[in-house]
C-alpha cells in the first residue's frame, strides 16, 4: 500500500488538539475550576447554578437573621426592664399596704408608681430602627398613648398582627408579639394593674388585691417573655445551621466544579511532553527524503 507522503497536516492537527487541552488545563489551574463555561460539563454547570442560588439564599438568611436578632434581643431586654419595673411596683404596693403607712406616704408611693407607669409606657413604646417593636404590624406609630378616659390610663393603638420571617429553606420564625398580647392582654393588663394599684393607694382601699393584680400581670409578662428567649435560642441554632449549610454548599460546589489540580497538572505535563515530542519528530523527519542523498 502506498503511504501518505504528507503526514504533516495530521501531526499539526494532533499538536493543535493537544495544545487545546493544554489551554483548557491552564485555564483550570488559573481559575481552580473545572467548569469554566457550561459546555465543560453541562450537568455540573446546571448544578453549580443551583448551588450558587442556595449559597446566595443561605448568605441572605444569615443577614436577615442578624436583622431580626437585634430586634428580638432588644424586645427581650425590654421585657426584663418591664419585669424589674413591675417588681418595684409590687414592692411599693406591699409597702403601701402596711397599715402603719400614713395617707400622705401612700400618696407619695402612688406618685412613685406613676413614675413607674410612665417608664412602662416608654418601654412598651420601644422603637427599634424606626419601628415600634410592640405595635403588632402597625410599626410606624407608637402603640401606647396616654388616655385619661381609659381605665388603664393608656390606649393601645397598634394592631394584633404578627410577622413571620423565612430564615431558612425549612425555617420560619414569628418575629414579634403585639402589645395586645403583652401589656394589654385582657385579664392581665399591665397598665390597668398598675393603674388599679395607684388608685387603691390613693383611696387606701383594696391595696392587697391590686398588688395581687400586678403580681399576676408580672407572671403573665414573664410567661410571654419565654417567646422571645425561645426565638433568640432558635435564632442561634439556625445561625449555626446556616453556617454549616454554607460550608456544606461550598464543599459541594468544590466537588462539582473544583479543579482536581493534581490530575490537571499531571495532564498538563503529559500534554506538553507530547507536543514537544511531536514537534521534534517533525523537525527530524522533515529533513529526510531521497533528493537529499542524490548528489
Amino acid at each position, binding site marked *: 500500500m502506498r503511504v501518505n507522503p504528507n503526514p504533516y*497536516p495530521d501531526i499539526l492537527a494532533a499538536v493543535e488538539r493537544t495544545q487545546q487541552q493544554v489551554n483548557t488545563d491552564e485555564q483550570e489551574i488559573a481559575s481552580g475550576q473545572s467548569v469554566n463555561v457550561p459546555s465543560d460539563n453541562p450537568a455540573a454547570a446546571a448544578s453549580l447554578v443551583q448551588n450558587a442560588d442556595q449559597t446566595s439564599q443561605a448568605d441572605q438568611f444569615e443577614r436577615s437573621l442578624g436583622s431580626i436578632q437585634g430586634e428580638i434581643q432588644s424586645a427581650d431586654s425590654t421585657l426584663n426592664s418591664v419585669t424589674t419595673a413591675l417588681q418595684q411596683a409590687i414592692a411599693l404596693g406591699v409597702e403601701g399596704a402596711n397599715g402603719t403607712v400614713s395617707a400622705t406616704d401612700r400618696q407619695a408611693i402612688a406618685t412613685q408608681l406613676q413614675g413607674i407607669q410612665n417608664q412602662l409606657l416608654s418601654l412598651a413604646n420601644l422603637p427599634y430602627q424606626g419601628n415600634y417593636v410592640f405595635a403588632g404590624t402597625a410599626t410606624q406609630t407608637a402603640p401606647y398613648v396616654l388616655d385619661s378616659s381609659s381605665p388603664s390610663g393608656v390606649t393601645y393603638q397598634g394592631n394584633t398582627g404578627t410577622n413571620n420571617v423565612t430564615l431558612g429553606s425549612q425555617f420560619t420564625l414569628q418575629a414579634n408579639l403585639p402589645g395586645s398580647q403583652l401589656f394589654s392582654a385582657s385579664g392581665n393588663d399591665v397598665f390597668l394593674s398598675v393603674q388599679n394599684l395607684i388608685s387603691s393607694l390613693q383611696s387606701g382601699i383594696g391595696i392587697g388585691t391590686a398588688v395581687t393584680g400586678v403580681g399576676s400581670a408580672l407572671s403573665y409578662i414573664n410567661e410571654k417573655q419565654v417567646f422571645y428567649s425561645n426565638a433568640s435560642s432558635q435564632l442561634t441554632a439556625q445561625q449555626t445551621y446556616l453556617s454549616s449549610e454554607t460550608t456544606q454548599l461550598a464543599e459541594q460546589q468544590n466537588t462539582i466544579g473544583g479543579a482536581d489540580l493534581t490530575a490537571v497538572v499531571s495532564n498538563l505535563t503529559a500534554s506538553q511532553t507530547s507536543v514537544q515530542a511531536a514537534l521534534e519528530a517533525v523537525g527530524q523527519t522533515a529533513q529526510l527524503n531521497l533528493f537529499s542523498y542524490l548528489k
Partner: protein
Amino acid sequence: MSSLNASLATALSGLTAEQGALEATTNNVANVNTPGYSRLVPVLVSSDPIVVDPLTLGTGVTLQSVESIRDPLLESQIQQETQVQGQFNSLTSALQQTQDNFTTSSSDIGTQISNFFDSINQLSTDPADLSVRQGVLTAAGNLATSFNTTANSLTQQQNSLDLSVVQTVGQINQLTSQIAQLNGQISNLQNVGESAGSFIDQRTQAIDQLSTLTDISVIPSNNSVTLTTGNGAALVTGQQSFTLQTQLNSSGLHDVYSQGDDITASITSGQLGGTLQARDQQIPAILTQLDTLASSLANAVNGVQAAGFDLNGNAGTNLFTPPPATGVGAAASLSVAITDPSLIAASSDGSTGSNGNAEALYALGSQTIINGQTPSDYYSGVVFNVGNDVSNASAEQTASGLVLQQLNDQRSSISGVSLDEEAANMVQYQSAYAAAAQVVTTINDMLYTVVNMATLTG
C-alpha cells in the same frame, strides 16, 4: 530486415518518452505543496510493432498519456464530510459565543434572580424601611437588565450570523461560477483528447471549498460535473451556474432563495447550514426559554403584588411592566414599572409593618411558577441546554474532523506527491534517457561505419 534508421527512430522514441515522463516528475515536484494537486503518472506503452516477414520488430515506446491519480469515490466522501465539518465548525463557534452569556458571573441571570429574592427576604425583616425597599427595586432593575442584556446579546449574535449568511451565499455564487467555468475548460480540453488534470484538480478544490460552505450533491457527467443543493436546486450544470439569492423575511433575517424558491430550511450542512441552524433554531430556542422565564416570573411577581398593600395602604400595583401576552420578546423588554419604593406591596393587611405579602413574594423563589419549575431550577435548565448544545456540537466537530483527516490521509496516500518516489522516478527516467542516448551514439557509430565502408568500395 531491420534498418539502422529504424533503430535510430526507436532509440529516439525512448529519448522523447523519458523526457516526457521526466516532465511529469518535474511537475509533481513543483506541485508538492499545492493543495488538492493529484500526482501525475506517465503512461508509457510500447509502440505498435512492424512485421517484416518473418520478423516482428518493435518500434520503440510512446508516452500515451500523463494521468492524474485520483479516487472519485474518496473525493465525494471527502466532500460529504467537509460539509459536516463546515456545519459543526460554524455551529460550534456560534454557540460558544452564546454560552458566554450563561457563564456564572456577578451579572448573569441566575445570580440576579438570587439577588432579587434575597432582597425580598431582607425586606421581610423590615418591611417599612425605605432603603430596604429601594434595595428590592434595585435588585429588580438589575434582574431586568440582565435579561435585557442577555436577550440583546443573543439577538445581536443572530444578526451577525445573518450577515454571515449573506456573505456565505456570495462566496457560494463565486465558487459555482468558477466551477462552471472550469467545467468549460475541462470539456474543451478533453474534447480534443488533451489531459485536463490540473483543471480537474482546481475544480475538485473548488468543490471542496463549496462543500465547506453548504450541502451539495455532485453528479459527474461527461467531462463535467453537475452540482445541486442538498434538496436538488441546481447550482451548476455544464458551463452554466445558477446564483443563490438572499431576501429579507418578516423577522428581519435573510432567507436563501434558488430561482425564486425559498430553500433556507433545506440547507442543513456546510458552514451555511451550521450558521442557519444557530440563527434559526438554537438561538431562538434559548431566547424562547428566556422569554418564558422572564414573563412567568414577571407575571407571578405582579400577581402577588396585586394581592398585597403598599406602604401607603393601597392595593399593590405591577412591579414589572406586564410582559407581552405571548411572552415573545419578554426577556428583551423586561423592565421595572415603579420607581417609588413605597409602592412595593410588602403588607398583607395594609398595615405598614406587615411582611405577609413580602413573604408571599419571597416564596415565589421556591415555587414551581415557570413551566413546573422554580425560577432558579428553570434557569439552571437553560444553562444545561446551552452547555449541552455547545458540547454536542463540538464533539461532532471533533469527530467529523477526525473522519475528514482520515479521508484526506487516504486521498493523500493515493494522490499525494511523494518526494522519495519522484526522486526514484527521476533517477529511473534519467538513466533510461542516458541509455537511449547511448544507443543513439552506437547507431551513429554504426552508420559511420556503413558510410565509410561505401566510400572504400566506391
